[in-house]
């Protein structure tokens, strides 16, 4: 189970990374194509879908790596016991909201599938196809939050905290704006 979950986060993160690289490749192809007189139809639509996929598919992985930001100021000042309670509050709340989000997103995309809504651009495909990245991303995010909630309830240090501490110790600041 542990290995499956870890692989799930890594795989979805890698897929998001591939989407990001594809955005770059597509932009370059479009720019060079324009010079050569070749027009890539609907490239703009694909770029925006890939950007969304990059954001949503990476959610679980980014969350585990402690890179979804939050205000950690007061948390760091708390003692061990109070911190534990605060983490459970934050994770519990986030899990609840992520579950709500998952429901809202699944409902919306299901309806768009049922009524066969089409994309409003040059590419005439059902809009639920690109929107699946949101569905999948939010579901993986929900799993990742529940995963951490269970770990904290069992008095284990959450993975996002471990990852953040490791990064600080290694002096790696490439991931902050």
């Amino acid at each position, binding site marked *: 189970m542990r290995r499956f979950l870890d692989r799930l986060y890594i795989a979805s993160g890698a897929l998001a990374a591939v989407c990001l690289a594809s955005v770059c490749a597509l932009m370059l192809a479009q720019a060079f194509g324009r010079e050569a007189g070749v027009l890539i139809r609907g490239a703009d639509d694909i770029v925006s879908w890939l950007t969304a996929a990059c954001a949503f598919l990476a959610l679980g992985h980014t969350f585990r790596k402690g890179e979804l930001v939050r*205000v950690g100021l007061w948390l760091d000042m708390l003692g061990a016991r109070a911190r534990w309670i605060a983490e459970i509050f934050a994770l519990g709340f986030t899990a609840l909201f992520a579950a709500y989000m998952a429901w809202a997103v699944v409902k919306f995309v299901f309806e768009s599938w049922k009524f066969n809504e089409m994309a409003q651009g040059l590419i005439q495909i059902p809009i639920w196809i690109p929107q699946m990245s949101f569905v999948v991303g939010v579901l993986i995010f929900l799993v990742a939050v529940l995963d951490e909630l269970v770990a904290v309830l069992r008095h284990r240090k959450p993975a996002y905290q471990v990852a953040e501490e490791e990064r600080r110790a290694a002096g790696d*600041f*490439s991931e902050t704006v």
Partner: protein
Amino acid sequence: MSVLASSLVLLALLLVLLAGGVWIAIALAAVAWFGLQVFTSSPPEVNLFQSFWGSSASWTLAALPLFVWMGEILYRTKLSEQMFEGLSPWLGWLPGRLMHVNILGCAIFGTVSGSSAATCATIAKVALPELKKRGYDEKTCLGSLAAAGTLGILLPPSIIMVVYAVAAEVSIIKVFVAGLLPGVVLTLLFSGYIVAWALLNPDKTPPLEPRVPLREKLYRSRHLVPCLVLIVFIVWVMVIGWATATEAAAYGVLGALAIAWWSGGLNRETFWASLMGATRLSCMILFILAGASFLSSCMAFTGIPRALAEWVASLQPNKYTLIAILAGIYLLLGTALDGVSMIVLTTSIVIPMIEKAGIDLVWFGIFIVLLVEIAELTPPLGFNIFVLQTMTGRDSNYVALASLPFFAMMVLCIVLITLFPGLATWLPDVLIGVTKK
């Protein structure tokens, strides 16, 4: 319920969630859900989907992950060593000598990187031990690195500027170009302070190093050329309108890969590391932007920003008073929030107010970016302080105090662009046009 009461309820809820350590994007979205559910009859789940999807599936926003990736690639090259080697022979004659490498190095790296902490870390990694070895004053050295690192978000391309431009719906390229002159002014202010400090403390500057012949100087700087070419190229293609910001970002990635490959720092491992790092950072920013866009749509339904803007307009505040009050609020926010959150949290409220007061939105972008820069230096949450704290082992107060004079220079820069708004608006208006978005 009155608009005032409902906005206070939402604000209180947001503060509780943020203080409780709830992830910022989730906190924003939860407040938006609450606002829609309680104060309006609009179905929140439909709004949630449309805001999140509409904000993320955006062609304009595609520039953001690409600029992030470009910075991540260059962060992993040997550029920092080459920057020190290439700049140091040229700057020895100035009072303060090699201390200016910190400033200029950060300014140059800042033009290819869109991040403040990464700029600071990149330059400090090499400059700090080298300057220490030569006996430079540690305090001024740390202060100059902490402050100059923030040039990364003022000089284009800048991740913070993309976030602002998207949130405030202004042209990314215009904000980029607007940052150029203030960036130069701030660089000069920093260097000017070092000159003044060195003249006042002549005993604290190590002796002049042996002169290097011109040919040797040029040879040592050869590695900086590709980097400079890349910067000029990216800004130039955007300004002449040959490429959009997103396309320019894609060229930037290509150029960064070429530089990394040429300097021998590119292999499969660093490529993946840069791509995954860029993906995580982009995911974090895009998710916050999506949450903020949901909150904005909730705000529009409740009418809070409009009411607030009208209220502020009815007071007929002096433009300078309004700017001073906003600067104070942002300074306060900056002590506890990161730059991206600072911007997305406030735009839905502040932008209508600014528009009503007749303040240029591009100018306001530069103003806000300068305040985000200051926020990087203000403890308890200042990322550049963290960077140098980790690198030197000094405590954060020491680093914060060391950067205090440079902090003053940044405040001076804000005063300057407030008194002479043309510093920010003249260049984009001339190059891109007043009306063109």
